[in-house]
């Protein structure tokens, strides 16, 4: 039997609960998914850190390692602001701190949810930051508007909050980064420009 056949045979044993599926079918249309108020200043996307594309590796064991990220914000006037951020990990304190070079922006994250201040307005966000001992995908960042019940804004599903297109930016190594937003903002990819 091939690996693929064995894999399919194995995982086909997992099934969703019929009761739960029927429950979802019955309650369709009764639950409104919250959408972020348009007038608020919102975080558009926390692109999967450019670390993923540079091939640079930082992991939890790399005390004080600095990783680059690009975070896009759009304000109520539809103006985009790109913030180059750096992330510092301290194994000793267990703290992960993300700071941005942009104006009035500071994001600090430990194990808790964080607050982001943009243009004087503070908003609460839940931030997940994965650091694996393997290192090669360290730096995946997800941001939720509200840790409990709002849409997640991340590098994959931006839920239409941004405009498709190709954006250029520099990371703090001075490399050109090309950010491609496609599929009505649902797909965001960061690549070091060739």
């Amino acid at each position, binding site marked *: 039997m091939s690996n693929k056949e064995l894999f399919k045979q*194995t995982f086909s044993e997992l099934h969703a609960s019929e009761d739960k599926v029927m429950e979802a079918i019955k309650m369709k249309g009764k639950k409104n998914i919250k959408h972020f108020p348009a007038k608020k200043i919102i975080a558009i996307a926390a692109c999967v850190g450019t670390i993923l594309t540079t091939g640079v590796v930082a992991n939890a064991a790399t005390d004080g390692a600095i990783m680059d990220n690009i975070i896009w914000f759009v304000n109520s006037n539809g103006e985009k602001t790109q913030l180059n951020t750096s992330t510092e990990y301290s194994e000793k304190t267990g703290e992960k701190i993300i700071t941005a070079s942009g104006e009035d922006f500071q994001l600090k994250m430990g194990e808790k949810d964080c607050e982001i201040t943009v243009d004087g307005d503070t908003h609460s966000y839940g931030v997940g930051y994965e650091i694996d001992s393997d290192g090669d995908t360290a730096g995946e960042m997800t941001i939720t508007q509200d840790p409990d019940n709002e849409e997640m804004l991340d590098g994959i599903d931006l839920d239409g909050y941004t405009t498709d297109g190709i954006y250029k930016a520099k990371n703090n190594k001075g490399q050109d980064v090309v950010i491609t937003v496609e599929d009505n903002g649902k797909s965001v990819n960061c690549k070091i420009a060739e």
Partner: protein
Amino acid sequence: MKGLSHKTSKKDGERMTDEEFNAVALKYSDSIFRIAFNYCKNRADSDDVVQNVLIKLYNSGKNFESEEHIRNWLIRVAINESKKLLISPFKKHAVPIDELSDKPAFENREQSDLFDAVMNLPKKYRIVVYMYYYEDYSVNEISKMLGANSSTIRTQLSRARNRLRDQLQGVWTDE
């Protein structure tokens, strides 16, 4: 599947009919569940993800162009919902698979060992391996869905295979 096997005449914002929704829910609920299980490693959370994804589907008002379009959309939303659930303050702690009673009762040892080995992989490997070996997505397709570089996915897949081969000697073969 009625109404979704070809480009529909619906516009974005127009909800699918109840009949269409029910058909999609029944057809894809297991796929959504498996994606979620690869993240959450337990049935209760995975079932919650299934419900959230289905409700999002119904409320999305998306105009799906094909079966493939709806499948890709559901898997992407399932990934996002699973991640969202995992980063909630109540889900920060991980539960080792051997402490779970949610493992299916496999008929043969090979399946059981493979399941354990996959569940013991780091999460980032689990989802890539699952999408490649079960859902038959290519590396490029996975990279688009996960928003990662294809070279990163290729590396993850390769490392996952090595781990599975090491853990499952004689079961997981070199390809």
